[in-house]
């Protein structure tokens, strides 16, 4: 593989040919701000937030995400010219973006907000016409507020390139450009599979998780990394927890699922707090269940299992373990049947 050497902010870097300046900078720990870039999506070069200054290039400031690293290149990622250009990029975005951070779901987890803070963009300096769109609320999980969209296109790319669904795309041109569904009919009428990959990608508050609305900002929740409890892919995800309740899910990009989830993994946690949950042991008497204490219920189970074993032998007992519970619990369950009851009559639904 042919290698190229370049200098970024005074630091020498050697990378394989074809590497972008953005990737080369990351390799030596230099973070360049981005809005439209994602490591697993095609390069768009749309937002211009990642512009850098390349010595000898008087013409323009290239986008680091799309600019290949070249031999001998001398790059400045944070020069005054670069900072000024990024500030103008942000001012142009803010000119057509509601400054409603007070109530925005993305507050504290919004790259536009973060960069405006970093680059000192306080308010819209450009005035003019603003977009007016109604919020698409038809899907039970995904809310789309296109007035907040900065047209980075990551949602479009993830939907097409990763999910293979293509429920959304750009329509119109110029100022009227908008990300929307077929015939602007809304997500509910589209082939959308509610995976929420678009929410994961959205750098601002344009795409948000409806079930999490009003239940806590990103900085208010504790994030507990765990393994999804639905299918055998075993996706890694983080539950957002506030006041002992799950209020949302955060992606875990550094995982075999690359942060991607499906509709059940991302939105299917509500059952944990279902009023139908069993909260106390139940004993059936005369065909009806009544509540019981753990002491009473466990005593009864131990007694009954013991009686059957004494009367009919251990092989008259059987246990169905579970593909839903943990390894440790499956281990104990088969140990219980083999060591305590004395039978190999233990199975689970692997066959179903």
């Amino acid at each position, binding site marked *: 593989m042919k290698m190229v050497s370049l200098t970024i902010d005074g630091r020498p870097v050697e990378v394989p040919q074809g590497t972008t300046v953005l990737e080369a900078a990351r390799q030596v720990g230099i973070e360049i701000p981005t809005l439209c870039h994602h490591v697993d999506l095609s390069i768009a070069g749309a937002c211009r937030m990642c512009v850098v200054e390349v010595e000898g290039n008087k013409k323009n400031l290239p986008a680091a995400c799309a600019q290949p690293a070249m031999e001998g290149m001398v790059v400045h990622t944070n020069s005054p010219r670069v900072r000024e250009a990024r500030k103008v990029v942000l001012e142009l975005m803010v000119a057509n973006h509601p400054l409603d951070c007070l109530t925005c779901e993305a507050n504290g987890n919004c790259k536009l907000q973060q960069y405006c803070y970093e680059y000192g963009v306080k308010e819209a300096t450009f005035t003019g016409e603003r977009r007016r769109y109604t919020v698409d609320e038809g899907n*039970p999980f995904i809310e789309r507020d296109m007035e907040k969209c900065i047209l980075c296109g990551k949602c479009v790319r993830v939907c097409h*390139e990763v*999910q293979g669904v293509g429920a959304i795309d750009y329509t119109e041109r110029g100022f009227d450009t908008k990300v929307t569904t077929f015939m602007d009919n809304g997500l509910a009428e589209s082939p959308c599979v*509610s*995976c929420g990959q678009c929410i994961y990608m959205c750098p601002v508050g344009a795409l948000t998780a409806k079930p999490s609305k009003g239940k806590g900002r990103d900085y208010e929740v504790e994030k*507990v*990394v*765990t*393994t999804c*409890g639905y*299918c*055998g*892919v*075993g996706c890694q995800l983080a*539950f957002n927890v506030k006041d002992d*309740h799950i209020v949302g899910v955060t992606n875990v990009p550094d995982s*075999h*699922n690359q942060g*991607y989830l*499906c*509709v059940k993994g991302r939105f*299917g*946690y509500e059952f*944990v707090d279902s009023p139908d*949950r*069993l*909260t*106390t*042991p*139940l004993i*059936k008497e005369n065909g009806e269940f009544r509540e019981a204490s753990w002491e009473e219920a*466990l005593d009864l189970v131990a007694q009954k*299992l*013991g009686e059957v*074993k004494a009367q009919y032998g*251990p*092989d*008259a*007992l*059987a246990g*169905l*373990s*579970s593909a839903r*519970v*943990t*390894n*440790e*619990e499956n281990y*104990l369950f088969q140990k219980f049947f*083999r060591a*305590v*009851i004395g039978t*190999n*009559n*233990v199975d*689970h*639904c*692997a*066959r*179903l």
Partner: protein
Amino acid sequence: MTNSIEEIEQANVILAAGTNTTEAHPVIATRVHKAITRHGAKLIVIDPRKTEMASWAHIWLRPYPGTNVAVFNGLLNVIIAEGLADDEFIAQRTENFAAVKEAVASYTPEVVEKISGVPAADLVAAARLYGQAERGSILYTMGVTQHTTGTEGVLAIANLALATGNLGKEGTGVNPLRGQNNVQGACDMGALPNVFTGYQKVTDPAVREKFARAWGVAELPAEVGLTIGQIIDGAGEGKIRALYIMGENPMLSDPDINHVETSLKNLDFLVVQDIFLTETARLADVVLPAVSFAEKEGTFTNTERRVSRVRRAVSPRGQAKADWEIIAALAARMGYEMNYEGPEAIMEEIAALTPSYAGITYGRLEKGGIQWPCPDKEHPGTKYLHKEKFARGLGLFNPVSYKPSAELPDDEYPLYLTTGRILYHYHTGTMSRRVEGLNAIAPTGLLEINPADACELGIEDGEVVRVVSRRGSITPQVEITDRVAPGVVFMNFHYREAAANILTNAVYDPISGIPEFKVSAVRIERIEG
């Protein structure tokens, strides 16, 4: 899976058989999609239904339900006939090829077309594509296994991979996508009637001795126990008198539910441990409330053998307890102490007794999941299996032949019924059907029927019909769609009010004990008025 999820992107050809991946394993489907669109991989889909995967496929083979084995044998027939077999791999790494070569000799494309309905030319094209692949990866799920000949189906797949050298290297493999979150782990942990942890056989005296010593008991039972289907039958016959069910719902998930119900009602004592009062729990004498995975610590093992941590996010609801705590408390009452500080201590015991998990500790899992085999604490885990040699040394070819499904359509029950999952619900729906948004998108279990059949029967989209099999009948709503071929109807099994397993046939693969969910015969009746 012999190989890893990420390796799917490295395959040149993906052969996906009986897997509705976009719905049943959605995030794995993203890897398939990227393999095709980013890396130029070709996709062959073998499925009687026109799934999303079938729409992505370069070649889609649509066999009649239950004819997989003929199709797989046909593929191998063409691969051998056209000189596409990997002779070097066969010579160095395998044995018994001659027997398989002989067994598939009669499965010419024309013969296979007669059995399966797959056009001979399509079969040849698919065989050439897979046979010529530098890295061919086979994905399959229960569309292959849930047949009375499921074992033959899996063996026929293994024969294909062995004959083409698509094992023991990256981006290849025989990759069953396991269904439930911890079905792999439950098997690894010995929640099976014939093995302890890590598939150590109960019939091996040395293994029993090892576990008996570790567990501090005089001896352990030597006879292989009963499978789930045999346990249900045993309950019906009075052979099984007491049953302890933890986190399972056979009243929706098992074939021929009416039979399951009579059997469970025949028990002297039934205890069910679950997070909800399921259809099964309603039949119990005692119900013990367990916590969900969000309320406890532990590990799950996924389909690529990756052991990952489960962490407690919220406190137990009500008085519910973790399953491990309940089992330990019950054991103590029956005179056997299980004193564990927590799941981490249990994992230490598992690692000590299980060679493939020997190197797994909670400390190491903090840095991310580890794929077994992980034989010691320095071992990084195993991305793909069978690299230098197979577990048994040489890879064994097993000749198999096609046998028809146990119940085929006839005059009385003229349609094939095949069952499966949908994206928006999971298994018996105990969790997913308690999520408002999922119910809003998928409120009811639909019967998929081809427009031609619907027209002949005079039924309309959305109409409620009666579906009748030899076991019982249900009344689902109809969805008219060409996802199913004429003569075939499909139902998922997630909905108790339209429980497909009232209809399914409780016949099992004699080796795996898997029921034939994918093929039974039904008829459809219009409901008057």
